[in-house]
């Protein structure tokens, strides 16, 4: 039933799009058919593949950098009050700076692909930092005591006790940061000319080609939905097995 309602929502959105096209014309909003034809052309002439790969590389590298730094700094801050008091205001300041400002600064400092990767990392890192702080602060001392009582080796402590706990706190932030990294990456590419989907959109804007712009938007949304369905939902479903009571018995 949920799928039926989901399909109704998507169809309503497409109907609004088509209505907007008919009301305001192709320059403002191209029709569904024209956008589909343009997307097909971009796919066939080999424009989409390399652009997609470049954006994936930029977003992935930036996300990974933000995730590693955010997790390490957040864990240290969660475990040590001094580090927490030092880093939390820094995180708030970084979160308060708009991504667009980071892009401009990064273009001046690095330029090219490095500017895109840096912008993604600096935009996503503080989100992951906050989640890691919460995760490290809520580590269960009793479970660690149990594991020590069974003489669990360090690898087992990391993989069976601390790791899953931290991951359960980090996962929502990592998923949100992954979606954010795509959007920030496209925005940074648009301004930096470092290749990727953002560069494609910049070209379409220069040619006042609204249909091509919409085709690129469709590509970005399709990638986000695919990643969400193939990866994030599966992980979320697995975690829900142990986080919610799906089959408890009394007695």
């Amino acid at each position, binding site marked *: 039933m949920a799928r039926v309602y989901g399909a109704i929502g998507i169809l309503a959105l497409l109907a609004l799009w088509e209505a907007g096209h008919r009301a305001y014309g192709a320059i403002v909003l191209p029709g569904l058919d024209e956008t589909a034809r343009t997307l097909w052309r971009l796919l066939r002439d080999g424009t989409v593949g390399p652009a997609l790969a470049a954006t994936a590389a930029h977003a992935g590298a930036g996300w990974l950098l933000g995730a590693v730094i955010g997790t390490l700094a957040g864990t240290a801050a969660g475990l040590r009050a001094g580090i927490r008091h030092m880093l939390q205001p820094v995180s708030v300041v970084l979160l308060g700076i708009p991504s667009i400002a980071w892009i401009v600064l990064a273009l001046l400092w690095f330029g090219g692909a490095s500017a895109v990767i840096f912008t993604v990392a600096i935009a996503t890192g503080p989100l992951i930092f906050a989640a890691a702080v919460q995760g490290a602060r809520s580590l269960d001392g*009793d*479970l660690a*005591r*149990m*594991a*020590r*009582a*069974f*003489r*669990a*080796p360090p690898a*087992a402590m990391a993989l*069976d*006790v601390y790791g*899953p*706990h931290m991951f*359960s706190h980090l996962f929502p932030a990592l998923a949100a940061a992954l979606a954010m990294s795509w959007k920030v990456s496209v925005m940074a590419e648009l301004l930096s000319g470092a290749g990727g989907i953002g560069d494609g959109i910049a070209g379409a804007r220069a040619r006042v080609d609204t249909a091509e712009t919409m085709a690129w938007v469709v590509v970005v949304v399709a990638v986000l939905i695919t990643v969400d369905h193939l990866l994030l939902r599966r992980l979320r479903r697995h*975690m829900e*097995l*142990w*986080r*919610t*009571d*799906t*089959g*408890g*018995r*009394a*007695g």
Partner: protein
Amino acid sequence: MSMAALGFDGIAFAYGATAVLEDIGFDVPTGRVTALMGPSGCGKSTLMLLAAGLLSPNAGEVERRCRRSAIMFQDPLLLPWRTALANVAFALKAEGLPAAERRDRAAAMLARVGLTAEDATKFPRQLSGGMRQRVALARALVVEPDLLLLDEPFGALDAQLARQMHALVRDQVEQDGATALLITHDAQEAARIAERIVLLTSSPGRVALVRDPPQPVRQRGKGEIASEAQRLLACIG
């Protein structure tokens, strides 16, 4: 009597300025069940943590003469993100066994505590309180301990299930020559299964009584158990 598997000699322990245990001295004889009783807050659980080596005493000495100890807490303390099978197998990680052998031994022990193969695949949140306690008991027994430390583990179970679990502990003691130190509030249970009963005073805990009921455990009838329990309850006051 054989040498004690565990000995407390002049133990004192305090959390900050609050004295919890003072001058604790008694032996836990090898191959026997020793029941530890006392009012709430008298330091029984702290004494258990000292026995497990998870705390160090402020004074005195804990003498452990065992190869492998296992502890079962009041709370099952299962890893919520691991299935019942993986929780039991986790206890064997220190042994350096191959994963398949860990799984096989864990599955056999879960069957021994009365859980099905289907239960073994469930996460702790999907099990009832009693089933979680049985998983915790399986985790303690799977390492084949020669010293079992049981901190009131069956308080949440109904009487029949608690008796089954106590029988499993007794099997471990009688068949494998293990030693058990068991905290309980139930004088009847202590009188039924323990060769030695140690009673602590209220906080700070001191030894009020060390008693070895005269009849062997298997020969105790309802009358002997009831009168022994009466005697204990009279001492507790």
